[in-house]
């Protein structure tokens, strides 16, 4: 094993870890007044780590960690989402009186964990990456520690997350017990042919643990509470970067470790996908809080992502990656819009009734929000439609026609509440006095994301599709 080469391949993680440690000391000595400098350095570190990811490829530390194109794609997407979560945050925390330098540092540590998740080719690396990300996430959820809901979100996330980690670990121990290895390659080799019931239980438990992390039905119950309680920039982060990491991880485990038992996990994934789409659509209808609504929207979208995985083909995985990229843009954009809603005293507003008549007070914001909602609903000229097209195309290509048909039918349920938001903004009278707009960063991010998911996004198809195909081919 060549340590020098291994260290170069894991360079992004090393840059973020060392950078995070240095910034932690800066934060300890300078306190809250260094927040701005630490945030900017954190974004710079993310850029550096992104470049480092692309520079080196190969397996590191005896196939514990893989720096292939698939992990490159995941890394870059995660770093972009994390950097945007950093950029939208400062004003929110300033207003809450909790502008602390620990926020960017925790995001950096979460990114180290997420980077390891997408690169893991061994169950131990997977687990360490997952825990590193989760521990940072628990603290982030309760970052507004004087706010009761934020503290509750952190506690709930921690208890349920620990339970899910236990389930995952139990599944991994079963898989190890029946295959004799924790390495994906070795597991793939020994699971071929007839499979023992114990190993099947291992696969089931591993998938249950991972389903919790991507908040797929029936392990979604924590999502609305945590998303509602966590500070909005943190919710935006939760809905984007960790979703990318956990989905990429699930894909890699399913294909790289359990690829010889596709029939076993395919049924599970199909069930999770359909349950997520339907429940994410139905349960969102009665919600009155925008963040809760977007939580159900994320559950709904995870269902569509998993349809691509259920196909189990290279085309399907490529579709998952395309959908993920579009989903990240739509989600971050929606949160950037919601964060611009403020009450008369500048306090954040996040109720559904608050956006009524928004088109009369702030045309630009209402238009951006409408674009995101139509795109999330998958209505044609917008880019969100393309994500659904590739996913369903892959499912049909793999012979899963009934799945695709049910999925398309169920997506209509979700369209109801997305369009309800648009109706509220454009056709209802404003009932609350609302200040809108909150600094240039939010407006710019909202506008850029709106452009990306607008019909102009279709110009990026050759580029995005090419990268996604390359990444998916690394797994097969």
């Amino acid at each position: 094993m060549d340590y020098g080469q291994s260290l170069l391949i894991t360079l992004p993680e090393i840059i973020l870890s060392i950078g995070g440690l240095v910034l932690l000391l800066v934060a300890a000595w300078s306190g809250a007044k260094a927040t701005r400098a630490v945030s900017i350095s954190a974004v710079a570190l993310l850029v550096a780590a992104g470049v480092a990811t692309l520079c080196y490829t190969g397996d590191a530390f005896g196939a514990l960690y893989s720096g292939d194109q698939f992990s490159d794609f995941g890394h870059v997407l995660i770093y972009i989402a994390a950097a945007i979560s950093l950029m939208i945050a400062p004003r929110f925390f300033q207003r809450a009186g909790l502008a602390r330098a620990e926020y960017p540092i925790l995001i950096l540590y979460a990114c180290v964990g997420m980077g390891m998740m997408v690169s893991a080719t061994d169950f131990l690396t997977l687990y360490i990456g997952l825990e590193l990300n989760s521990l940072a996430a628990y603290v982030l959820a309760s970052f507004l520690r004087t706010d009761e809901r934020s503290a509750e979100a952190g506690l709930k996330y921690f208890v349920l997350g620990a339970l899910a980690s236990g389930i995952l670990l139990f599944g991994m121990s079963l898989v190890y017990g029946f295959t004799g290895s924790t390495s994906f390659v070795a597991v793939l080799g020994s699971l071929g042919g007839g499979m023992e019931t114990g190993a099947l239980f291992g696969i089931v438990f591993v998938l249950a643990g991972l389903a919790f992390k991507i908040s797929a039905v029936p392990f979604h119950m924590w999502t609305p509470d945590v998303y509602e309680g966590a500070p909005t920039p943190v919710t935006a982060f939760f809905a984007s970067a960790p979703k990318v990491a956990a989905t990429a991880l699930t894909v890699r485990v399913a294909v790289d470790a359990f690829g010889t038992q596709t029939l076993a996990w395919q049924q599970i994934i199909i069930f999770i996908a359909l349950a997520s789409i339907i429940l994410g659509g139905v349960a969102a209808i009665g919600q009155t809080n925008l963040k809760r609504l977007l939580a159900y929207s994320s559950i709904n979208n995870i269902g569509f992502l998993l349809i691509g995985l259920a196909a189990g083909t290279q085309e399907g995985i490529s579709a998952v990656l395309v959908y993920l990229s579009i989903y990240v843009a739509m989600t971050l954009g929606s949160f950037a819009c919601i964060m611009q809603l403020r009450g008369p005293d500048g306090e954040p507003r996040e109720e559904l009734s608050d956006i009524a008549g928004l088109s009369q007070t702030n045309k630009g914001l209402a238009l951006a929000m409408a674009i995101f909602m139509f795109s999330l609903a998958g209505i044609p000229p917008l880019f969100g439609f393309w994500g659904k097209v590739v996913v369903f195309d892959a499912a049909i290509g793999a012979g899963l026609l009934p799945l695709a048909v049910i999925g398309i039918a169920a997506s209509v349920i979700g369209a109801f509440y997305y369009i309800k938001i648009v109706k509220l903004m454009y056709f209802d009278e404003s009932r609350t006095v609302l200040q809108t707009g909150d600094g240039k960063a939010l407006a710019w991010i909202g506008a850029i994301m709106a452009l990306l998911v607008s019909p102009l996004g279709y110009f990026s198809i050759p580029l995005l599709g090419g990268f996604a195909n390359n990444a998916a081919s690394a797994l097969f």
Partner: protein
Amino acid sequence: MVDLSQYLPILLFLGVAIAISSIFVFLPMGVARLTGAHKPTAAKLAEYECGFPAFEDSRSQFDVRFYLVAILFIIFDLEAAFLFPWAVSLEEIGIAGWATMMVFLFELIIGFIYAWKVGALEWE
């Protein structure tokens, strides 16, 4: 069939551990009962636990600083627990294993400096 005889040492260890630890618990009780005067009072029968009354509403308030100290203690206690298996296997894991542990200790020290600097260790 799995050869269970290879697990004999751990079985012996568990047996011995349970036996010895029950001796630690029950021997003083027995000796006290046999040699001392048996005059129980309410104060004598009360459980001793860290200075807190043992039975009362679990929602009672007490100082959050106890938690902070306990959490910091656990972190460094675990660090010590990691050092034992590392120390006995140092011969096999070689220079890479040594370097890894040094990195781990270094990171913990940075965490310690942070905790110290932000005042987590100060009682007042």
